[in-house]
């Protein structure tokens, strides 16, 4: 069973929810977790919930990188920060993957300092799953979008590498045999979006081993046309936050409408089952987290507001990715590119 290092101090509800999530994972699985953080606080929380100590060990880390701290300065000043120690544990071979719900910048920086990039990888990418419409029965309800924030700007080759990494992840973790890859752009035509995107389009069209379906426009993101959507980090992050924002607005509008008119309340009651299903589909706690792809070791970034359930699922997804050899699959794909 893989050993997963978990940054116990990272996240808005840390360490309580993180420790509880690991405790839940210890009861339902045989995954071994190393909780990195303040030993006394972690132990106190553990003892207040059901857990299996056989699957949990604790590494004391005296310092924490707070959510609002500048990553570079914080990591320089706090050498014993939980995220840094977690990354080091993985790099030293004491664990096979790292999970954190903490400061994203600090997480990526800590991984970049301690993990080795897969040979040939130019830039790492943060990938995120999101719910989408399905086109045929049995199609996965989740699609993958990368990069969503590890990079700002990319060139064509970076985007091609993202396509290879996303395909490998979808094949291994989501079990999509031949993932369809789309390039996020402002039009379907191959020449749209400027030189970088046009070149990336050309390279992807001729790339063996990747099922490229062409450009994907904004209105197609939530449809089932592509299983993997490739874009640069700035754009990916905007798209992801937009999806989250729309979901929040719809919820607010619906709850206000219910308060205003009896007829609307009745309508909402009739629709409640469908709304519950949508809410269930959009529930981020089910999906675990966003993998940082391109390193020899896996890092899974859980949502900052992660609850115990989200952390439990993040641990499970990380263990699955390790077991299924995502990094090895990516390395093989990148090797084929060269």
């Amino acid at each position, binding site marked *: 069973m893989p050993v997963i290092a978990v940054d116990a101090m990272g996240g808005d509800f840390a360490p309580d929810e993180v420790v509880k999530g690991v405790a839940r994972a210890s009861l339902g699985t045989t995954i071994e977790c190393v909780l990195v953080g303040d030993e*006394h606080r972690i132990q106190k929380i553990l*003892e207040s919930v059901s857990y299996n*100590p056989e699957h949990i060990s*604790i590494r*004391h880390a005296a310092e924490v990188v707070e959510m609002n701290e500048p990553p570079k300065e914080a990591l320089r000043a706090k050498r*014993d920060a939980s995220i840094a120690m977690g990354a080091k544990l993985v790099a030293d071979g004491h664990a096979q993957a790292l999970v954190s719900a903490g400061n994203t910048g600090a997480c990526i920086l800590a991984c970049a300092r301690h993990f080795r990039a897969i040979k040939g990888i130019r830039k790492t990418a943060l990938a995120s799953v999101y719910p989408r419409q399905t086109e045929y029965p049995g199609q996965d309800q989740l699609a993958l979008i990368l990069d969503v924030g590890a990079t700002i700007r990319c060139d064509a080759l970076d985007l091609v590498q993202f396509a290879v990494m996303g395909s490998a992840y979808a094949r291994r973790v989501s079990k999509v045999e031949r993932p369809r890859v789309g390039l996020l752009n402002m039009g379907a035509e191959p020449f749209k979006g400027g030189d970088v995107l046009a070149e990336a389009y050309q390279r992807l069209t001729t790339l063996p081993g990747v099922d490229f379906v062409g450009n994907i426009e904004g209105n197609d993101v939530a449809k089932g046309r592509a299983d993997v959507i490739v874009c640069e980090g700035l754009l990916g992050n905007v798209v992801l936050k937009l999806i989250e924002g729309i979901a929040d607005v719809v919820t607010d509008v619906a709850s206000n409408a219910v308060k205003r008119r009896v007829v609307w309340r009745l309508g909402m009651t009739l629709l409640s089952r469908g709304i519950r299903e949508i809410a269930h589909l959009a529930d981020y706690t089910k999906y675990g987290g966003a993998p940082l792809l391109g390193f020899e070791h896996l890092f899974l970034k859980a949502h900052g507001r992660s609850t115990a359930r989200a952390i439990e699922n993040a641990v499970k997804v990380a263990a699955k990715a390790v077991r299924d050899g995502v990094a090895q699959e990516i390395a093989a794909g990148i090797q084929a590119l060269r």
Partner: protein
Amino acid sequence: MTGWSGLLARWPRSGRRWSLAPGARTVAPRPAPAAVVYRWDLDKTYLKSDFESLRKMMRVPFERAEDKIDEPGVVALIRALKTSARQEQRAAFVYFISASPPQIGRAIREKLALDGIEYDGIVFKDQLQHLVRGRFRFLREQVGFKLAELLKARIAAPPGAVEFLFGDDWESDPIIYSLYADVIAGRLEHDALADILVRLRIDPARLVEIKALSHRIAPADAVRRIFINLERRTPPDRFRSFGARLVPTFNYFQTALVLHEEGVVPLTAVVEVGRSLLERSAYSRERLRNSLDDLARRAYLAPNVAVSLRRDLEDAGLLPSTGTLGAWPRQLWRRWRRRRTRPLVRPPITTAAIEYPRLIDVWEASGSRLGGETS
């Protein structure tokens, strides 16, 4: 011991690795008492009984000895209790007490024989008398039954014998055993005991019997430890109010570690229990290491004892090794770093007297049941 003398003192003996862990010296366990009584509950403590549904519960009386499954490590531990006592020429008595009906006794005795368990007595609850008298409420009552039987057994025990009690978190074992320990220690007034038992709604006939028995006991603080097998994975925090005497354990390796510290089993017994978990129950050495660390973090093992045990068990090949000869400069560096950031040592669990009325309130509010269960 500091500087070079400290380093030299830790020079590996033949076949040993370096250990720079603080306080890594063999710690002598407590001296063993002359006579020890071990009292074991059966279901969920010795046997992995399944009462989760009525159907499974109904199946229990019809199970044959070979169908019954023991808790991982328990057989190795009980065998070691007897063997080590024999080797050290001490008296050790193993008794079983169960609130199950005597009709299943035959299968249980056969199971114990199959497992090679030497025991000195076994008691079952006679449910028939309640059925005949139509007192169905008391069919499931076990506080009164177990407490009365324990007191009777104490009267018959050799004078000066110390006791270790073993139960689980499914039933009322924590409160029954704690009451028993305090009654025989003379810490609980007879009237206070009666009030508690009334509160626990025990059979009035049993109440009279317990009162009479408690008057006959010569006070002695005989119960050293109460082990509660966390079969249900109840949060250990819930047992804090029972004091340091009660040790919630997640597996019998943890139980063996505490018994070793108590001086009633040698290190070889701990190794035996660990080996049985590795070989029979698919445990890994990492799981055993994590179990030891958990016990130390919960302050049921003294820090120096935990360090010493870890080193000895690593040497015995039971735990994964943490150090190598070639890596000592790195260990020195790590030790210096650890000193800089070492967490505070957790204060030991308080040993204040148990406030039973408050404890019963808290215990019942937390959803744990008292009184009316079967075992």
